[in-house]
């Protein structure tokens, strides 16, 4: 394309339609009829000829040497087609890639196991029932080794080592310093310092991971169908694991039942690929069951020990922010490893203008399940620490929590604003968001009610927190932990068929956020057609334009950019043809409200579909040298991104959405039950492409935040045995715990992103745990108690309350 190509529209006014019907409206979703009638083909619904089913034998030990494996009895069982162990993995594959490198293993344990649930042997048989029967016939001899389960002990001299060859258990260590943080703390009138503990919890999408792999030894290819959150990334990693050229690896994504970052599946994919190879190329399906997901899947994130401090002047202005984080990543760094601990750099200081900051980050390995991403990636715990410290500082200075925040907000006139840790926030009006939340909840009346009930011996707590949601992730944010690259491409191809209907081809599958609908809304408005005239089709990794898919609050914005870019290119093509038909020059022709015609001459125009029809069916009418394909592709990547410096500073995430959550809880000081009474959210994520989808993302994030704050925890005992191996023990929030929230939308458009939209899928997960914990501490303040552990389970809270009663 020529360098004169137009920029991607950053507002609705720039698209060639005077009456857009879909963008910005709560358009019904294209994906829903198939989902509602049970017709959507999830991976477990797929059956292929001669398909086998995989079952996996897993380690019962947290740390042990494997001394012998006997599969002979299982091999004789009727219906068993192939069995693979670590030896096959060693022969045919490489260890999985990790960030940082050197902390990964093969898909099946070789020589030793490092966590309970680690795959050791896998069977492919004619049914899952038979495959599981076969597992019972396999014997594995172990020689147990001492396990290290606690992150602090993992740092101690003489600790058991996960990877002996690495010399210690430290996966990553770095001190990031931004500005003169020592001076900030020396000059401070107040320093508020506390420790915080966030326990392991994770994504738990309702559908677990599933895959069908087929190894073709004649063609030398690997084809995998499955519920991959980022199919292209999966394909690249498999090419490296199996030493295959990338074009010999083909990944086909099926719609998935949620992901939230925690779909996982790399090991299962590699295991089924090995089984397929060993069975002579038969397709092998593995559907992870829930207990496998909880013990061995992508179900755990954020096992964190914090020590953090704010330095403030006499007026409550924050001068500096220090965070020391000990992050327990579990046995390996395979689940995007250090990426999640690095993400807070993109919004380290939240909504506040804090000139100096420091991040002392240590990531250790322990004998627990490798950590995985989860909605928000790293900021949910980080934002809780920051917001809770703001509340504690307010208490120390005698300020209202709303007031201390107001005094520290980045002012609206300061945008675009570069924070101490290097990222640039595009736009925002944090005071307005805070004011909206306070008004919705009638904050003053809430405080009065709180005082009244306190005199009656009831403990109401008010939580008021703000958050920044960095949107449109970029690899440069993770350069510092060893992830290469700047920019994350997302491509779309837009085509008009002979009968005038439109197709958008993309490289990602349905996951629940409604991005096919967003893509269709944008294209329908661009060409001014009914949305039913647009169909969105997912393509596999070898067919789709470069893509990444959902992740890091990016896809809504990214696919909008891609569709706009492709539509713009396609329009240029149509204009070139139409100029020939109208016997004029392209600069005299335009698309307007679905018609292509000569500027200023309404008589000389035709529906855009007719131009496409001429391209496909009337070569005699076309100007010479014209490309007769009414189709165009555009690969969007965020503009203006910069590489990171040695302190990790970069323009990384393109957009910065902002929200303020206000919650009222009541803590029953006798039973330690926390009841959420009311919940208000003011949210500013720029232009809302589909407001109903944004609200759904917000409410869904609140639910996961409630789970994190009060219920969810993956519990290991001191031997590294998982105590929460079913949904009876690992508690997901139900309607009984999740509040129905009152929401208000504000809009400060992004000046940089397509149509002014900002990433909006994660913010509620940043704010909700913080809001609930701040509210609990607000309730406990008159008792002189502080609670700094997530989740605030009844048992933990009860222990604190009982202890306090004893001490009194």
């Amino acid at each position, binding site marked *: 394309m020529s360098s004169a190509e137009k920029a991607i529209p950053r507002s609705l006014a720039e698209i060639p339609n005077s009456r857009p019907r879909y963008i910005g409206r*709560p358009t*019904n*979703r294209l*994906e*829903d*009829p198939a*989902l*509602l*009638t*049970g*017709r*959507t*083909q*999830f991976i*477990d*619904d797929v059956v292929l000829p001669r398909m086998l089913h995989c079952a996996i034998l897993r380690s019962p030990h947290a740390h042990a040497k494997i001394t012998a494996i006997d599969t002979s009895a299982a091999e004789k069982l009727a219906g068993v087609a192939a069995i693979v162990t670590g030896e096959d993995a060693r022969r045919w594959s490489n260890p999985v890639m990790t960030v940082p490198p050197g902390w990964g293993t093969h898909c099946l344990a070789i020589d030793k196991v490092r966590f309970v649930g680690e795959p050791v042997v896998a069977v492919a048989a004619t049914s899952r*029932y038979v495959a599981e*029967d076969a597992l019972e016939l396999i014997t594995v001899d172990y020689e147990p080794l001492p396990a290290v389960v606690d992150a602090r002990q993992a740092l101690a001299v003489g600790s058991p080592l996960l990877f002996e060859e690495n010399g210690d258990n430290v996966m990553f260590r770095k001190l990031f310093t931004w500005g003169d943080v020592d001076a900030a703390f020396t000059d401070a009138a107040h320093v508020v310092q506390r420790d915080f503990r966030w326990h392991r919890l994770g994504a*738990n*999408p*309702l*559908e*677990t991971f599933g895959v069908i792999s087929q190894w073709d030894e004649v063609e030398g290819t690997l084809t995998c169908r499955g519920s991959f959150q980022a199919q292209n990334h999966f394909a690249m990693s498999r090419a490296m694991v199996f030493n295959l050229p990338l074009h010999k690896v083909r990944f086909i994504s099926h*719609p*998935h*039942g*949620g992901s*939230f970052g925690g779909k996982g599946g790399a090991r299962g994919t590699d295991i089924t690929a090995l089984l397929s190879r060993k069975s002579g190329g038969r397709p092998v399906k593995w559907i992870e*069951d*829930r*207990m496998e997901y909880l013990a061995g899947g992508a179900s755990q994130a954020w096992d964190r020990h914090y020590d953090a401090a704010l330095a403030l002047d006499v007026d409550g202005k924050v001068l500096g922010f220090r965070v020391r984080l000990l992050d327990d990543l579990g046995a390996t760094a395979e689940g995007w490893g250090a990426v999640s601990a690095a993400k807070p750099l993109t919004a380290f200081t939240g909504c506040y203008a804090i000139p100096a900051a420091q991040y002392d980050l240590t990531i250790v390995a322990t004998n627990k399940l490798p950590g995985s991403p989860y909605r928000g990636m790293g900021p949910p715990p980080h934002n809780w620490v920051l917001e809770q410290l703001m509340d504690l500082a307010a208490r120390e200075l005698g300020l209202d929590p709303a007031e201390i925040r107001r005094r520290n907000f980045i002012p609206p006139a300061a945008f675009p604003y570069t924070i101490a840790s290097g990222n640039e926030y595009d736009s925002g009006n944090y005071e307005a968001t805070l004011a909206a939340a306070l008004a919705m909840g009638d904050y003053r009346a809430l405080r009065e009610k709180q005082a009244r009930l306190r005199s009656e011996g009831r403990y109401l707590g008010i939580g008021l927190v703000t958050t920044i949601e960095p949107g449109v992730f970029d690899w440069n944010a993770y350069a510092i932990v060893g992830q290469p690259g700047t920019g994350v491409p997302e491509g779309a191809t837009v085509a008009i068929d002979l009968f005038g209907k439109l197709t958008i081809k993309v490289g990602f599958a*349905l*996951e*629940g*956020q*409604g991005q096919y609908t967003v893509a269709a809304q944008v294209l329908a408005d661009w060409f001014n057609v009914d949305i039913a005239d647009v169909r969105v089709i997912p393509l596999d990794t070898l067919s789709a334009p470069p893509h990444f898919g959902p992740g890091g609050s990016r896809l809504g914005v990214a696919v909008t950019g891609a569709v706009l870019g492709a539509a713009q290119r396609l329009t240029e093509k149509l204009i070139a043809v139409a100029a020939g038909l109208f016997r004029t020059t392209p600069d005299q022709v335009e698309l307007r409200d679905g018609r292509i015609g000569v500027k200023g001459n309404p008589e000389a125009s035709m529906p855009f579909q007719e131009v496409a029809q001429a391209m496909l069916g009337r070569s005699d009418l076309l100007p010479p040298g014209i490309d007769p394909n009414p189709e165009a592709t555009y690969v969007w990547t965020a503009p203006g991104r910069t590489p990171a410096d040695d302190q990790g500073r970069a323009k990384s995430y393109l957009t910065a959405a902002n929200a303020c959550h206000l919650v009222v809880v009541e803590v029953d000081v006798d039973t330690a039950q926390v009841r959420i009474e009311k919940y208000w959210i003011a949210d500013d994520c720029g232009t809302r492409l589909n407001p*109903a*989808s944004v*609200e*759904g993302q917000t*409410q*869904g*994030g*609140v*639910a*996961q935040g409630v789970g994190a704050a009060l219920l969810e925890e993956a519990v290991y005992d001191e031997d590294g045995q998982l105590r929460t191996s*079913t*949904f*009876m023990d690992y508690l*997901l929030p*139900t*309607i*009984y715990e*999740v509040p*129905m*929230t009152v929401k208000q939308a504000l809009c400060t458009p992004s000046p940089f992103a397509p149509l002014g939209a900002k990433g909006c899928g994660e913010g509620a997960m940043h704010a909700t745990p913080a809001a609930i914990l701040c509210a609990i501490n607000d309730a406990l303040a008159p008792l002189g108690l502080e609670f700094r552990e997530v989740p605030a389970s009844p048992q933990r809270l009860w222990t604190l309350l009982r202890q306090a009663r004893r001490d009194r």
Partner: protein
Amino acid sequence: MTSTRRIGMTVNGERYEADVEPRTTLVDFLRGTLGLTGTHVGCEHGVCGACTVLWNGKAVRSCIMLAVQADGAELKTVEGLARGATLHPIQQAFLEKRGLQCGFCTPGLMLSIDELLARTSAPTDTEITDTIGGHLCRCTGYQAIVEAVHLAIEKLRTK
């Protein structure tokens, strides 16, 4: 292990007969043997409700029932809700109110709601909460589901 039993049942008004291993779960039978894959499996241990089907009009969790227990029964699955391309009022209400995101929990949930609304056309808020309360949805945060139930009640009343 390989011995089978012949069972028969009606699913969504259609009659089926098949030989099954006694240990086959009902959900594996519906999905694997009959190919009715609209019923989903979220936990396989009776907690999440994704696998809910109607068994003689009652909502049951098909992951913790055996296929042989459904011998002679009348079953209804999500495939039995719509009439061709015309969505059932519950489905239409879910669509309009965004009662779903990934849609994985939705078939089971809609069948529990179907059971509730077959029993009473004007359920109380508690009854609605208790119906949804038997299901886990990881995506929606339940608010839009509650709204969908209210709209479904409205639609069924004016039908």
